[in-house]
C-alpha cells in the first residue's frame, strides 16, 4: 500500500490515459471524419497524460509496482491494436484513393494514378 501513496498522482494520470483510450476505441467504432478528428485529439491527451506519469516517476525513486506495470501493459496492447488499425486504414484509404484517382484523371505516363485535382466550382460574373 505504500506505493499507492507514493505513486498516487502517476496512477491518476495513467487512469486518465486509459479512460481517454477507451473513448478513442469507442469513437473509432463509429467512423466519420468528425470522430476521426476527435480520436486524434484524444490521443494527444493520452500522450500528455503519459508524459505526466513519466515526469512523476522521474522525480521519485520508482519501486516495483505490479498494478502500474499491468496498467501500462494493457495500454501497450491497446496501442498495438490502434497502430495496426491506423496502418491498415492508411493502406486501405491509399488503395481506394488510387482507384478514385485513376477513374477521375486516368494514368500518368509512368502508369501511376493521375494526381487528384479537387478544384472548387467558380462562378464568374460581369
Amino acid at each position, binding site marked *: 500500500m505504500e506505493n499507492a501513496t507514493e505513486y498516487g498522482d502517476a496512477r491518476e494520470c495513467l487512469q486518465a490515459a486509459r479512460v481517454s483510450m477507451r473513448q478513442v476505441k469507442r469513437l473509432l467504432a463509429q467512423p466519420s471524419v468528425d470522430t*476521426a478528428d476527435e*480520436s486524434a485529439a484524444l490521443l494527444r491527451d493520452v500522450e500528455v497524460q503519459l508524459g505526466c506519469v513519466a515526469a512523476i516517476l522521474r522525480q521519485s525513486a520508482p519501486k516495483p509496482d505490479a498494478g502500474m506495470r499491468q496498467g501500462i501493459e494493457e495500454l501497450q496492447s491497446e496501442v*498495438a491494436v490502434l497502430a495496426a488499425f491506423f496502418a491498415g486504414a492508411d493502406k486501405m484509404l491509399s488503395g481506394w*484513393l488510387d*482507384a478514385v484517382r485513376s477513374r477521375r484523371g486516368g494514368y500518368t505516363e509512368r502508369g501511376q494514378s493521375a494526381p487528384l485535382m*479537387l478544384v472548387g466550382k467558380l462562378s464568374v460574373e460581369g
Partner: protein
Amino acid sequence: MGSLFSALDSASQSLQAFERAMDVTQNDVTNANSPGYANQVPELISQDFQTDTGVNAGGVQELTQDTRSSYADTAVQQQLSLQGMYQQLQTSLAPLQNVFDVSSSSPIPSALNQLFQSFSQWSTDPGNSNYQSAVMDAAQATAQAINQSAVQLSQIQTSTNQDIQSTVTEINQDAAQIQTYNEQIAQNPTPDAGLSAQLENTLENLSGLANIQVVSGIGGQVTVLLGGQTALVEGNQVNAIQAVNDTASNAGNPGAAPTISIEDSNGNDITSQVTSGSLAGLLSVSNTLLPSLIGGGQQVGGLNTLAQGLADSVNNLLEQGTTSTTPPYAAGTALFTYNAAVPAGIAGSFAVSSTITGSQLAAGSPGPPYSVNGTALTLAGLDSTAAGPVDGQGFTQYFGSLTSAVGYAASNASTEATAQSQLVAQAQSLQQQVQGVSLDQEAIQLVQFQSSYQAASKVVTVIDDTLQTLMTMIPT
C-alpha cells in the same frame, strides 16, 4: 391526330417513369437492412422533342442507377479477407498455446523441472533406492509429457487439414452460387437490386475465405479471380480449386507430414496466390507453424529436436558414467530411447528404456579422478549449462523459445484480428457513406479520413515510445 396520340403516349410514359421512381424509393426503404443491398437512384432523363414525328415528344425516361461504389466494395472485400486470415490464425493458435503454455505448471516444463530436481536429489546419495526410483518416475513423466504434446500437435495438424478441406469446399460452393447469379443476370439484364445484394453478400463471404478480386462485366456479371490470377468464376463457368497433399514435400523426412497445396482446376499449384482469408491462415498454420514444432515438409520440428537433445545428452552422460565404485568401472546404461529412423516422430517415440532399472543408473564418474556422484551432479546441472545442449540452449530455455514463438504469433494474430474487425467496420461505414456521391465527394471524404488518421497514427507512435520508457522506469 397523330401528334395528339404522341403527346398522350409521352405523358403516359412520363407517369410510368415517375411510378417506377417511386417503386425504386420504396425498394430502398424495404431493403434498407438487407445485407449487401445498395441504394438505387432513379435517374429521370428528359427526351428530345422530335418535331417531325412527334414520337417521344418531350417527357421523361427513367433509368435505375445502382449507387454501389466498386472501390468501396473492393475495400470491404480486402478488409474481410484480412480479417478472415487473422481470425483464423487466432482460432487455430489457441489450442497450440495450450500445448506450449508459458506457465511452469504446463506438462513439459513441469516434468523437466522434476527430472532435474530428481537428478540433484539422487546426486546427494547415489545408492539411495528411493532417489533412484524418483529419477525413474520423473523420466517416465517427462516421456509422457513429450508424448502427450506430440499427440496433441498431431491432432491439431489433422484438424487443421480438415479445416483446409472444408474451407476449400466452401469456396467452391460460393463460386458455384456466384455462377448461378451470373446466369440469372444474363437471363434478365434489367438491374435487380435484390440479386445484386445476394451477389454482394456471397462475394463478401468468399472474401472472408480467400483473397479474391472481382471484375464486373457487361450487364453486371462478375468474374472472380483468386489472388488476382486464377479465375474461380468466369461468366457461367466455375473452376473449382482443391487442396492436396504435396507428397514430394516430405520426401527424405520420414514421419513428417506433407505440406498442403492448393491446386486450380488444371492441377497447377496456386498456393502462393492465397495470401489472405481464412484459407491463408490455415495454410500458414499447417505448412509453416506446425512443421516448425512437430515436423513437416523438410523440417524436423522443435519438439522432436528437444526430445532428441534431451535423450542424447542424458544417455551420453549415463553411458560415460559408471555404477561401479572400484575399477574396472562398468559403463552405465542409456535412460531414454527413441526411433532415430523417424526424425519427425522422435517426440512420439520418446520413452524410458524398458531395460533399465533404478539401480542401473550410473551416478559415478570414472574420471580420473573417480567421483561417486560425478555423473549425477553433471546431469543435475545439464539444463543450466552455459553452452546448452539444444541449439545452444538448456531444455527448459529451448522449450521457452518454442512457447515464445507460438505466443508471439498468437498475440500478433489477436492484435491484428481486433484491428481488422475495426477496419471492416470502417470500410463498411465508408461504403455506406460514399453511396450515391460523386467521385470528387468520395475522394474528399477519403482524403479527410486519411489525414486525420495519419495525424493520429503519429501520436500513437509517440505514445508507444512513452509506454516503453515507462516500463523501463518501473522495476519488476
